[in-house]
Each structure stands twice: as C-alpha cells, then as structure tokens.
C-alpha cells in the first residue's frame, strides 16, 4: 500500500477516540463552520454556542483519522467557558500539547481543528454580529490559511487529474 509511517499515538488520543467528548451536531448553535475536504480525508465541523462574549457550549463532528477526532474533541473541551478572544488566541500547538503530543505527520489534524474554530469565530463576527472587535486580525491566521491551503491543494490535484467533484 502507500508509504507508511509508524504512528506513536498518545494514550490520550486513543482514549478520546474511544469516548469522544462533545460529539455531535448542535441544533441551537450560534455559529457552525467546517474545515478540510472529503477528498483529503479530513473534515472537522465545529459548533459554537455563544452568550455575550463567552463560548458557553461547543461540539464537533469529524471525518478523519483518530488524531483528527481527538483534536476536534479536545479543542471543544478546551474552549468551553472561554471568551471568544481567549479561544482565538489558542494555537494548534496548544491543542497538540493537550493531546499529549502528536506525531509530526498528524500536526495538520490539530491545525485543521484550530483553523475550523478560528473560521467559526471570524464568521460569527463578520456574518452574524456584523461587527469586528479590535483583536480580530484582518488577515487569516496561520491555521485558517493552512486549512484553506489543504482544501485548495486537493481541488488543484482533482483538476490536474480531471476528476469531477
């Protein structure tokens, strides 16, 4: 099969894979966003319920590997009760550390989860609140940019090989 790398998952990842926290669609979410693409084999959906400037609840859905599921799950756990600003300041490294480390080839799982979160926060201010706090940068964050790059890469590959999506 394809080129392979041994995956030294932390026990925390397996634990979250077995019993994911905050799993599932949230019907009364304030904002929903998605990052990744089915063709890449990675999709994370993040649901946020916001009250004032606080995230009072969060959940996720994930199409991906165990690291993908665990990263999305731990992220939703980390942001509950945080202000939007505090949640925005989280980095993919924070999520990877919380998981007890990620194998390097799985860094993108944590990047995608944080990219999805930042996309949700941006969408909340731009499309729902229609106001922009000072701390929210105009330019895309590192994680949003990388999520976009991954989505665009597969589009380009599909175009190259003539696959109809």
């Amino acid at each position, binding site marked *: *099969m*394809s*080129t*392979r*790398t041994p*995956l*030294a*998952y*932390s*026990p925390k990842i*397996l*634990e979250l*894979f*077995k019993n*994911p926290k905050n*799993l*599932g*669609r949230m019907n009364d979410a304030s904002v*929903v*966003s*998605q990052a990744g693409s*089915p*063709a*890449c*084999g*990675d*999709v994370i*959906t993040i649901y946020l319920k916001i009250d004032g400037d606080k995230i009072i609840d969060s959940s996720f*859905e*994930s*199409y*991906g*590997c*165990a690291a*993908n*599921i665990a990263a999305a799950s731990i992220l939703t756990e980390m942001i509950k009760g945080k202000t939007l600003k505090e949640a925005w300041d989280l980095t993919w490294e924070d999520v990877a550390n919380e998981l*007890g*480390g990620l*194998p390097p*080839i799985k860094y*993108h799982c944590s990047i995608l989860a944080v990219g999805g979160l930042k*996309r*949700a926060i941006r*969408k909340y201010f731009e499309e729902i609140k229609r106001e922009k706090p000072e701390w929210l940068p105009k330019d895309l964050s590192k994680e949003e940019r990388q999520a976009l790059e*991954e989505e665009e*890469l*597969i589009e380009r*590959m*599909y175009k190259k090989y003539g*696959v109809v999506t």
Partner: protein
Amino acid sequence: MVKISELLEQHGKPSREVYLDNENSGWVPPEVVEAMLPYFNQKGYGHPSITNLPGWEAYEVVESTLELVKKTLNIRSGELVLTHSGTEANNLAILGTALAANKGKRRKIVVSAIEHMSVLFPARTLEERGFKFVTVPVDKEGFVNPEILSMLVDNETLLVSIQMVNHEIGTIQDLKTLVKVVKDVDSEIIFHTDAVDAYGRLKIDVEDLGVDMLTLSSHKIHGPKGVGVLYVREGLKISPILYGALSTQKMWPGVENVPAIAGFGKAVELAFRDFEGNVEKMKNLRDMLIDGILETVPDTLLNGPRGEKRAPDNVNVSFLHVEGESITIELSLRGIYVSSGSACTSRVLEPSHVILAIGRKHEEAHGSILFKISRYNSREDIEYVLSQIPLAIERLREISPLAKQSKRSIDEKEVYA
C-alpha cells in the same frame, strides 16, 4: 515523548481476536516456528558456505527449501535467488535487468499502474538514468487489457513487470495471455511477474506461463519475514545490485537467514498440503465476508472483481463517509486487525494508488479496507467480524459529518462555511 507501552495499555487486549492483515505481515503458525528453532542453536546454525558440520547442515536446509519451491512452481531449469524480502527480489528483478542492459538500445520499462511499490519505485527511479518508464492502465476491476499492453511495448522495450495477483484488490491477471502478447511483439522483451500474492493460492507453472522472472515472499504464505525469492529463467543475465561476500547465492550477498529459510520451507510444505482444500476454504470465507458486508452495511463499494478472477483470500471494501485509519483502530479495539488504503498515514494527501487506478475517487479510497483471509481463519471468525463491522461503521458515521450531510437538504448545507 509518547510511550507506545502506554498506548498499548489504553488499547487493552481484546478478549476475541481475528487477524485479517496477512497481506502486511503474515501470521506464523506454530509448526513453522518449530521448524525454525533448531537452526538458531541446535543444528545448521553455521554459515552455509563454510566447510564445517553446522555450515553443511545450514547448506542442506537452504538447498532442500529451494528444491521444494522449484517443485511447486514446476521449474525444470533456471535459478532461484534467495533474498531477504520480496521487496529485495523485486528490486533485483528491475534494477538488475537495467544494470545488465547497460547502454543497449532497449530503454523502455513497462509496468502496470497497480504494481506494488517495490516494483513501481525502482522502475520509476530508472527514469533518472535514461530509461523510459511507462505504466499500463487497468480497468475498473484492475485488469490489464492485453491489446493496450501490446500497443505499449515495442522492440526498444527492455522489461515488462505485471503482478499475477494484485496485493490490494485481489485481481488475478490473465498472465499467460499478457506474456504471449508481449513476446509476440518481441520475444526478447523480458517479462517479470511479482507473484507474492499468487503463490500458495493459485497453481503457478513458470514454464507454462513463459515468464522470465518471478518473485515470491515467505511471509505472504505464513512463513517468517526475512525471505524473498527471485526465479530467473535459464540463460537470462541480470546484474547484482548489492555487493559483498557471496555465499550460496550468486546474486545476493550476505549470510543467508537460515532459520527463516527453514521456516519458509515448512510454510511452503503446509501451503501445498491439501492445496485445493485450503483454496476452497478461503474462497468460501471470502464470499461469506463480501456478501455479509454488502448486505448489512449501506454505502459500501467492493473494490476488485468477484468470482473466479478474484484471489481466494482477498476482500477489499470502501466504506463511504468514514476514514480508513479510524476504521482500522475502531476494529482493532474490537479485536479485528485489518489495514486501509487511506492517505492518513502517508501525508501526501495521496491514498492507495491501486484504488485510485481503478477509477475510485479520493474519498472512496480513504475509506477502503483490506481484509486478507487465511486458511487459519474459521467461519466463526468471519461471523464475529460480520457482527462487529456494522457496529463499528455506524459508530464512526455517527462521528462523521459527511454521512448526515449527504442526507441533509441543500438549504441546510448552506449554513456551513
């Protein structure tokens, strides 16, 4: 730093285990292990080309294993080269042929699009050394079309390499016809076949097939890892690709892995003892597993052909809306050990080249699972697997947004960024 021991603890040892990953690493039965043990420290622990008793004992087991393999392939002349893996034997076939061709006019190497990496990569590498690398496409079931193959070869073709049975989707090529169309274009084109997934499941007669080289691997037939074999037709000149102190093998340096060779010999003996019965058993289990999965799990696709043109031990299914690595872990927690063609462990966003070559989309390849059945599996094993797969896939589809999104209305989909 992650400790694998802690991961194992979190995983736990399932009370019931079914091993269906014999493609990636063969399960070794006790008889084979027993056949190996004396050669570590009781007899034949010497070097097979040194003149002392333990050396001669080692030589004897090397020779008797090769004799047995020759019989099973109906080899009347020609040579068997022992290497330390199937990968090494494939590399020797491809690179050794290219080296021997030197600066001759034949510069074209033709391989099927679904070959194992140990054929594809060495062949592709030769592009950098002035060779032309051509892949033959396959159809939706993985078959090479003889007419297309005959159009791709010419009198500048050095080598054609097409496997007998595909390692992922179990397609059995009509190899005799493929060899014939190539030799009809030019009888001097060298034909190699990677038969590691055919040996022990199909009757192979090298004289009848007309191939020039053929690869076998010990661990694919429940032998230990560490032994590969390359058959080289009599009179065919290939060059060594590794250099060092030669022993009994003229083409492969380094001391032979004698205990593993003894184990391989035993594995060959076992595979050909009641050959027909073993094959029939595997076919029944294969069809039971395919039918059971397609009946009980919605949104699944069988990869590869059905019936007599599928290897008796191969089941490969794409489960849509879920990702393969997750499936392997979910099934592992339930004691069922399989592998996937997902890109998730390769990180080049490229899933299995075999599943893509038969025309599947990326998202279909990401959810592909290979179940490699063996004669050591029972009906009860397959019943257990069939009882767990619907539960495992259902749980992962619960986690995945795709299964639900494909059912939701377009209006609802628009809320997603």
